[in-house]
């Protein structure tokens, strides 16, 4: 991207974000831990394996069907740790508040953070508060960082992925992004679309019974499942084929996508994970996921191939095929 200024596309999680990270941040902070570019850094402290991550939340609107910015700030960081094979333990919480922000709303958000933390079995152990002049931020921005203990036996890395591996998705796609979009645009549907914001640490803990069969996991947030699959393909130099008919999507989300001209493969999720697993253990892992309340609609949506390295192919419902590329430009800013 030949831009001299930061564009919204740099925060989309797609191509421009990757270019920025590689050309600026990785180039300047070069070290063996960062260059893995996983959702959480794997650290070794006195012989113990711990995971460390951070994320900032700027979602607009701050209250939306199925959640709010506080709940999202806990779930997002908890999930980044969980999908790296961690048992989340501790979170930090930093708030940047706009002068004039109603204390009543801050109280609601704080209660929501407390509930979400209790639900995710994490403690908020440190924090910071800044207030800036009216107009310097929009209402409230939140940063959380988190520490987790690596589950015994978890060996998750893109390099473990093999041709033939199955791709398991924990449930329906696009719920969060569409809920935000409809709320923001004031669009009404027959029944409400709610965000899927949820903690996935419990499902991951259960899945660890099959730790040896799980190659890699990610939570498909910004940029949706298409972006994650493309990252896996480009880093593993393998191909991926997914089947449109097998990808769970709620009817109202599908309708909203048709009306708004959006591709659900690129829409953000906040309570879903995607796992690349040994095909022989895929059904067993699927059964474990389905027993969890956040994995009831889990499905095997595709497989890793050697066919077209570096490329994600979608087999469409009518039997055609097409490429699923990285997201170019911004689909929807301030989604999380």
């Amino acid at each position, binding site marked *: *991207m*030949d831009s001299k200024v930061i564009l919204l*596309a740099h925060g989309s999680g797609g*191509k*421009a974000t990757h270019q920025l990270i590689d050309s600026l941040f990785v180039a300047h902070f070069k070290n063996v831990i960062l260059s893995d570019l996983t959702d959480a850094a794997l650290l070794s402290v006195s012989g113990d394996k711990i995971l460390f991550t951070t994320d900032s939340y700027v979602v607009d609107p701050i209250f939306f069907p199925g959640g709010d910015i506080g709940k999202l700030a806990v779930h997002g960081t908890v999930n980044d740790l969980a999908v790296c094979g961690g048992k989340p333990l501790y979170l930090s919480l930093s708030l940047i508040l706009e002068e004039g922000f109603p204390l009543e709303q801050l109280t609601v958000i704080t209660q929501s953070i407390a509930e979400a933390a209790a639900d995710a079995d994490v403690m908020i152990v440190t924090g910071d508060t800044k207030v800036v002049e009216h107009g310097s931020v929009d209402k409230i921005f939140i940063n959380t960082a988190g520490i987790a203990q690596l589950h015994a036996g978890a060996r998750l890395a893109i390099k473990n992925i093999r041709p033939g591996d199955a791709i398991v998705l924990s449930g329906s796609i696009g719920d969060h992004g569409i809920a935000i979009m409809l709320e923001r645009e004031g669009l009404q549907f027959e029944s409400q679309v709610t965000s899927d914001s949820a903690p996935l640490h419990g499902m991951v803990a259960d899945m660890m019974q099959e730790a040896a069969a799980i190659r890699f996991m990610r939570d498909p947030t910004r940029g949706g499942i298409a972006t994650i699959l493309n990252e896996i393909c480009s880093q593993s130099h393998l191909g991926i084929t997914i089947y449109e*008919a097998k990808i769970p999507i709620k*009817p109202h989300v*599908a*309708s909203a996508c*048709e009306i708004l*001209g959006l*591709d659900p493969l690129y829409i953000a999720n906040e309570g879903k994970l995607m796992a690349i697993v040994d095909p022989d253990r895929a059904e067993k892992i699927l059964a474990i996921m389905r027993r969890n309340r956040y994995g009831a609609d889990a499905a095997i949506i595709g497989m890793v191939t050697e066919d077209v390295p570096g*490329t994600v*192919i*979608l*087999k*469409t*419902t*009518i*039997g*055609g*095929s*097409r*490429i699923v*590329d990285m997201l*170019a*430009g911004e689909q929807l800013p301030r989604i999380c």
Partner: protein
Amino acid sequence: MKFIDEFRNADIAQELIKKIHRTSGLIGRPVSLMEVCGTHTMAIYRHGIKSVLPPSIKLLSGPGCPVCVTPNRYLDHAVALSRQKDVIITTFGDMLNVPGSSTSLVKERASGADIRTVYSPLDALAIAQKNPTKKIIFLAVGFETTAPTIAATIIEAQRRNVANFYISSAHKRIPPAMRLLVEDPELHIDGFICPAHVSAIIGAEAYEFLVRDYAKPCVITGFEPLDILQGISMLLLQLLHNSPQVETQYSRVVKQQGNTTARKLVGEVFINADTRWRGFGIIPDSGLTLADAYACYDADTVETVKPEEEREFPGCLCGEVIKGKIEPETCSLFRTICTPTNPVGPCMVSQEGTCAAHYKYGNA
């Protein structure tokens, strides 16, 4: 009925695909079919329709997107208008990023011009009423589908007595372009996948000349995968039996006479005029300009501007892509210099542009 899954049914699709293969085998020669609607182009790529057709059937993408066929001169003119004092430019969002000769509306907006995106021309009229000391110019870009709402807005402006609302019309009519395409000796089009929504306005009768004068099969086709497969199948059967006619696959929406109310509105406010298309040059009678009784709403009557000299980006082949003469991959700028994040030509900017479709969905 949710009207999504029903038109993507895998079993029915397989039946249609088999039928297409069978008919194409009986025809026994290569067949080129052209779609002239950007929504068809996107749907064909999104659902991987090319990948299920026999290799002897070629789908060509024609001038299907109004943004793509709008020449640089119109954009340069709009930019010049936006720099005038007390002018507010209103436009549909898809025009913002289209590069003109040296700048775009989005860049002009960043430099301070008052350019506002609207979802309906009526929103532009409301802006005019809220800003009585300003001149509000709506960039009227579109095919026959857009023209009726703009005609209705002009009539509404007259009813509300709004004296500061104007349009700059770059409206295009698709049938005259189809005549040029069918006469092009390089293209050899065997039949047309006729547009869905345009036809809902202009009706099936608008394509009769293609059968009468050129014996070309025409099928008005819907946008869902089963619609498109059935439309292709119907075109092939016409070719096989050598019985060219205008058929309507999209009969749940399109009527023989089209939407007579909409056509009456357009006929009241606009008259046909020669207009310039990117890639084609001037096509006689292919545009819409305000009729004398409504000429006071023409932006040219209040603002005389001198746009910069028109230039095309060196190497940009959008003009050839629009006519279906080349695939985007033939253009040396495609994917190298010209990408959705840094578009050079309109076919990459527009969400319904052929280059954008190829970039996004590739040829899997």
